[in-house]
């Protein structure tokens, strides 16, 4: 990887990082488990590696933004996540912030 490519990759990852959290929180307004969440995001054009998404879910849960529970589905125990009440509030604030940034960036571009 050239220096320019490396720089681009770092900036791209930086740009994606905050967006991923917002996308995950948005998707978890509806309860899902890890794999279906990953599929749902991919279907909307946002591919996330397993090694990024699953630890992110744990972190968001540790921060109190998500609630989870183990439940059996299709003869397999799965951990289902959904937005917690704190998560809903934070998500609303982040969404407004995102929309404001998006409007600004669009007007700048």
């Amino acid at each position: 990887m050239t220096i320019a490519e490396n720089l681009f990759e770092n900036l791209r990852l930086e740009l994606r990082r905050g967006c991923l959290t917002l996308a995950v929180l948005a998707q978890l307004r509806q309860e899902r488990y890890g794999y279906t969440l990953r599929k749902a995001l991919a279907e909307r054009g946002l591919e996330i590696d397993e090694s990024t998404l699953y630890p992110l879910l744990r972190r968001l849960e540790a921060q109190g933004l998500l609630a989870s529970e183990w439940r059996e589905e299709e003869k397999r125990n799965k951990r289902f996540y959904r937005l917690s009440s704190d998560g809903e509030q934070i998500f609303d604030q982040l969404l407004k912030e995102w929309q404001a940034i998006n409007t600004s960036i669009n007007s700048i571009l």
Partner: protein
Amino acid sequence: MELLDRYLQAVKKHLPWQRQDDIIAELKANLEAQLEDKEAALGRPLTNDEAMAWLKQLGSPVQMAAPYQAQQYLIGPAIFPTYRYVLQLACTWAVVINVVVIGVKLAFEENTSPAAWLEVLQHVPFTLLLTAAWVTLIFAAIEFAVAHSKTKWMPPAAPSASWSPVELPPLGEGGVAGKKPRSYSKAVAEVIFGFLFLIWLLLVPRYPYLWVGPGAPYLLASPFTFAPICVQFFWWVVVLNAFQLIWHCVDLLRGTWQRQQPVKLIVMKVFGLIPLTLLLNAPEHAIVLLKHPALDQARYGETLAQINKGLHQALTVLFVIVALLLAWDIGKMIVGLYRKRVAAMG
């Protein structure tokens, strides 16, 4: 699928032990669901090669487990700027003090070989390493304590509500970057205490108890007295303090007490070296003498020699430290002037 189980087993080894089983159970459920989807799309189980390609795409077990680890720092970003500052300061002073002390010690030893001087230089890396190790250890302990405490700690450099723009250093010529302006109360206090100190200094020769307190009678009764060179030293100190007091008074009257004046400070430090030089050049290094040499030489001669030797060594160390500080100040001023000139040109 055996290969997936082997993969998960390898991942487990790199996970935090408290949550290993929970994370592996979740990963297994997610990856098995993904595998089922793949197999359903193909209409057959994955071949060994396909399974290996899939697992390879997931990343190595270490890569998969790493994001589950809590972020750990030896010294985190919150305290790192303070750590770097303290490290620089501690290393600089450790080396300076070490070299000065050992250097002076060697200078007073008879028949000092070049190898002994080389040994002083060899001490430098060891001193640096030891100082850096201690500073790092202390800051690592602070980081550990902060990371494990329930309350969140804010670094001192973080913006706070108590910060005020008034604290910013003044602009203008002669300003020293990064230094707070002197307040009016500090300038007035300097004049008052400067005056009181001068009075005290002038009274000391007449009333020795002002200097040595209850030890004054013992000083008078002792067989020792100060050499005449000490009188010159005393008057130099008086003159320097009087000059400094006048300077502070002028600054106060002209309303320029806030302005830092590096050149004046350097000049004062240069003059400050004069009384020290006087004592260092005392004939035969005799700063203390016997009141009655003819009577007491036999009894106190050796003690007197030891006192004068000790005083001379201490004064040499002091002189070297003051000279180094002066060189540092001059260097800083030259760098500041050079930067100003470059900025003006560019």
